[in-house]
């Protein structure tokens, strides 16, 4: 049985056009390649 009030509360607002700039600034663009490279660098540092 669906709980309508709960379901409505789960809805999220859309990103406003005026907030696009902030969203771009806040975006975390770290990808798996960056993470792997960081791990490799740390490992190499520890080995030294």
């Amino acid at each position, binding site marked *: 049985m669906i709980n309508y009030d709960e379901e409505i509360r789960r809805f999220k607002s859309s990103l406003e056009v005026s907030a696009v700039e902030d969203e771009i600034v806040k975006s975390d663009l770290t990808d798996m390649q960056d993470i*792997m490279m960081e791990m490799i660098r740390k490992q190499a540092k520890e080995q030294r």
Partner: protein
Amino acid sequence: MDTAGRCRRISNSYYNLGLEMARERNLSGAVRNLKRSLQFNKNHTDARNLLGLIYFEMGEVSDALVQWVISMNLQPEENRADIYLDEIQRKKGRLETYGQIIGRYNQALYSAQEGNSDLSLLQLNRVVKENPDYVRAQLLIALLLMQSGKYREAGRSLSRVLHIDRGNEKALWYMSIVRENIARPVKKSAKDEKQQTVQTVNQEYTGRAPEEDITMVGYHENTGWQTILNIGMGLLIGAAAVFFLYVPAKNAQLSAAHNADLVSVENRLNDVNNQNETLTATNTDLTTKIGDLTNQLNTIQEADTYKLSQYQKLIGILDDYRNENYSNAADLFASIDVSQLTDVDDGSGVSVSQIYTSISGKMNEEGYISLGKQGDASYEAADYKTAIAYYDKALAIKPDYEDAMFKKAMSYKQMGDIQNANNLFGEIILKFPDTEQAAQAKKERGY
């Protein structure tokens, strides 16, 4: 294979999966896979651009802008995101419209979460009217309608969502609830139940009630002959339409164009005629003015010549005086027009009027006597015509010179001009009655 290469390979795999899902209109699934693709390779421009396109398709314009702007930052050259951004920004006010739609949705969501379902529905209906593909708005409408028991109407919104995004899990879940409620068994006969089931399936599939379906009527199978007959009739109707509608209209158009040309030519002709009349009038006026000015010039020239002639005579008088030729001086003095002699203040100190005054005294006292003597000499030489001329000059200087007048009359008598002679004799008798000349005149007249 190195780490970077493996990451790129995994990213590509997720991108291909996302692309395949996008082609099948499973947009939610495509979004999930494209996000994973970017998690493995943030520089996968195609994945990011496609993610932006899908967001845009679902009405999330701001999310699309975020992805495209990041894409342009990571790859400024040869990037299709540039085209997408340009497309949105090219039409003035388009971005503002999208912003207003999103703002209204957020307000509607706030109203719904505050318990104002009716107000929220009103706001959401405006939102989907402007952007029917706004998935979140359609889902919220469906949920609010389901809450109020309007499952059929909710089903329409959900159908719209699933038409845009077949893999939308929330829409699929809501649709299952809608189906469950619409297909709730009602105690009916077996036949009615079967019919009801068929109707329910139809409604679920189309999202419309049976009465709303459009039925095509009036369609019949045609035979070959009927087809040929129909084509022939069509051609005839077409030809008739050309003859009765197009040709008269074309003729009227040509006639109107011809009339317009004629009016234009006539107007130009009138203008030219008016200009010609104006020029002719101007020409006549100028010719008249030229005539007037020529006459004025001639008059001025004649006056100047006459004036110069008087100065010439004055110089002649002075010259005769210098040479003691008083007879000629008196002759010139008698004919000079003193009114033409005017002084010019040119700083030379010479006064023409003073010169004339200085000689006029002597000429008035003695000049006429000298002229009378010259007349007498001519009279003695029987040159009566010359004698008359001298006597006239003497009379011009001294009009009461009765001896000159008498001898003039005698000269006329000698020439046989008795009338002029008698006139002069009569004048002498009247003007100088007590003189010797008057007595002789009476004698000549036979008194």
